[in-house]
């Protein structure tokens, strides 16, 4: 009985239970959240080299589940996110909240499927298993965004399908070339021949679609903006992260030796372009959820700006990158939940309709503001700690462009995130009506507080993220000596 298995088996069990109970399936979250949180915490406190092969079948045949730093940090973040989003969904998808019952019934199995897929993806080191996990998460993502707008969901579906096929092509090439699909084995045997480079290129392309990096982000804003609040919270927080984690494993572990600085630089450049494009688009949005969706595009850009920084100085920027991902996970989930609640109370879906909300629903607006503080990277939030570490690493390496992008991105985020807050603070009496269920605002507030609290535990987080990190085992990362 190790959390490495239970973290995937339990949500699958809950999915079946939710499907079995049908209408009453939503109350399961009250059992699932604490259980999953305790499993995630148990995983964090496992001994550093905790890893085992599923079913006892050894590599290269079996699948290795490994609780390294990245896995622990992301599983904990995902557990926190999903648990609290689930509580919010309890209110959102209850029968009296309106909306077709098929939707209410369909949400929960997909929610648990995504949770299981995310955990499976974070914990495994097997590329084909990652493909199946990716499919679980994308499928659930498509299903959840279909609860909002079908048009956007179909577009997301086609993008995701092509992304998965590209990824699968890469896995096929690697298996044909090396006879194994396990990252730890590949890390030892990979050399820069044509097949490996082609596989890496194709897989990276597929995964960039999955993590919605700038040129391939087309599917994200419409899907996230139209989906109901808990769904878009999960989409932005968890779905986007799995693609990124796989890229981290590929570029910094499996093919660390052949990640040429030009290629990593290209990813960094795409990341910088994403930050700028996402921020400018977010500034132009009239609707609140579209603004939050484009902010995801920008924040994903930050993660890829960190790629060249980690390639050059892994020990410095590694925890910054992971902290930024987790802080974004928590803050974005909080923001989407808060935005959902605010839009329920506001007369329309535009930012201009949020007039006077700060007085009507102070707790939700506070949650939105705290999440915004973390996304902007203002102290004392987790976002600030991450941006600080990345900026620190960038200036140490003399990468002034990336430093400028990090600072500029923060400022641009301030511009577009303060706009809704300012409108909410404006006192002119808007036609907002108070929400019946004040308890609903607890989930976003708790998530936002976690994002802020991350700011104070930077050191503990860095140590946790560094467990079993590829660069910790001595070999320098990336082509740069």
């Amino acid at each position, binding site marked *: 009985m190790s959390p490495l298995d239970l973290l995937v088996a339990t949500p699958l069990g809950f*999915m079946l239970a939710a499907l079995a109970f049908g209408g009453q399936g939503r109350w399961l979250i009250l059992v699932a959240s604490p259980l999953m949180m305790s499993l995630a915490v148990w995983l964090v406190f496992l001994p550093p080299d905790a890893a085992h092969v599923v*079913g006892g079948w050894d590599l290269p045949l079996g699948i290795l589940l490994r609780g390294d730093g990245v896995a622990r940090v992301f599983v904990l973040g995902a557990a926190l996110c999903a648990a609290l989003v689930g509580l919010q969904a309890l209110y959102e998808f209850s029968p009296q909240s309106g909306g077709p019952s098929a939707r209410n019934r369909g949400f929960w199995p997909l929610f648990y499927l995504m949770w299981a897929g995310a955990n499976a993806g974070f914990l495994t080191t097997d590329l084909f298993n990652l493909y199946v996990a990716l499919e679980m998460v994308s*499928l659930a993502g498509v299903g959840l965004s279909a609860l909002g707008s079908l048009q956007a969901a179909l577009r997301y579906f086609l993008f995701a399908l092509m992304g998965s096929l590209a990824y699968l092509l890469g896995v096929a090439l690697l298996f044909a070339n090396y006879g194994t699909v396990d990252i730890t084995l590949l890390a030892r045997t990979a050399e820069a021949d044509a097949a490996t480079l082609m596989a890496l290129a194709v897989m990276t392309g597929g995964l960039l679609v999955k993590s919605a990096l700038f040129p391939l982000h087309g599917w994200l804003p419409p899907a996230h903006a139209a989906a109901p609040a808990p769904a878009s919270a999960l989409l932005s927080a968890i779905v986007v992260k799995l693609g990124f984690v796989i890229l981290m494993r590929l570029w910094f572990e499996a093919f660390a030796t052949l990640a040429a600085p030009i290629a990593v630089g290209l990813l960094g450049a795409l990341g910088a372009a994403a930050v700028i494009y996402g921020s400018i688009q977010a500034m132009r949005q009239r609707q609140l959820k579209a603004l939050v969706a484009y902010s995801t595009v920008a924040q994903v850009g930050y993660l890829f700006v960190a790629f060249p920084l980690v390639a050059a100085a892994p020990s410095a920027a590694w925890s910054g990158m992971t902290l930024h991902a987790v802080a974004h996970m928590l803050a974005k989930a909080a923001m989407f939940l808060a935005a959902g609640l605010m839009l329920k109370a506001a007369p329309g879906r535009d930012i201009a309709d949020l007039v006077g909300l700060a007085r009507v629903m102070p707790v939700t607006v506070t949650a939105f503001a705290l999440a915004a503080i973390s996304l902007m990277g203002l102290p004392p939030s987790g976002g600030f700690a991450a941006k600080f570490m990345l900026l620190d690493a960038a200036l140490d390496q003399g990468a002034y462009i990336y430093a400028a992008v990090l600072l500029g991105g923060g400022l641009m985020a301030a511009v577009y995130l303060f706009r809704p807050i300012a409108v909410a603070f404006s006192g002119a009496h808007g036609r907002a009506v108070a929400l019946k269920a004040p308890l609903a605002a607890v989930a976003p507030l708790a998530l936002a507080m976690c994002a802020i609290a991350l700011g104070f535990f930077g050191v503990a987080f860095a140590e946790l993220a560094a467990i079993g990190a590829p660069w910790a085992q001595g070999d320098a990362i990336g082509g740069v000596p």
Partner: protein
Amino acid sequence: MSAAFDILLCLMILATAGIALFVRGAFAAIAFFIAFGNLLGLAWLALGAVNVALAEIAVGAGVTGVALILACSRLFELGDNLADVRTPLASRLGSAALCLGFTVMLAGVVLTIPPGDRLSKVVAPLLPGLGIENPVTGVLLAFRGYDTLLETFVLLGALVAAWSLTPDASRRLPPTTMVMTDPTSRIVAEAFTRLLAPAALIIAAYLVWVGSDLPGGAFQAGAVLAGALVVATLGGVVVLPRLDSLAARIALMVGPLTFLAIGLAGAALGGRFLAYPDGLEKTLIVTIEYALAISIAAGLALLAIGPPQPMPNNARADAR
């Protein structure tokens, strides 16, 4: 001699695929897609992968073909004439160049990799331990059991996602009733089903049983059963239950549930998740396979037919 056959077969595959992708009419495209699927099955036979050939023809060509044809017929009735809007020449040329380059590079890279089996020498010695001879079933159900477990949940998730699209209006309706509208055709279909159904059941049961030693297995058997179910609904012999009816849900969940339960039991009895206690491997694998076959049959059938729709023919079927 067989090389010539391989090359001929590959050319036919490429031809049917080309037509399927670029022919103007939607129905023609799908017809050729099904032909393409069958030819692929032959290719897998030529490669000596009988399991995959079965799966490709039954699931790849069969179920996907049925799903696409049904989707197209409903789109026609909804007035979407599946017209092929011409994309501007510039973007067509651009993507042509891109794909050509991609294909040439991929083909080049593929040629650098010497074909040869990779892990069969690793799999072979472990099989006797499981008490099964068919290596593919061994890999699917034991060594990579974790993948297969997750994959069955993907199937279940796809079904839930498809069914969560139904608007409340058509909640009460069973999956789009597929009964033939023309009475005499229905009799023909009904007669055919009465003949086919028992044979399909026997074949499916045989496939699952033989799967542990000879090519076969849960997925192939499930696909055969799904085919039988679809034909049965065509003939009106069987009315597929709604997803929220208990029968459907039990049938869908029995596979993943048994797999998960046995996996957890393995972990609980001191071993590890998905580790079969030695001595019991074969029996456990076969029970899992039978459960999976049922779930896959129900899943694929419901998926192929699609969620209930406020459909004109739905209404008409009810009217009579």
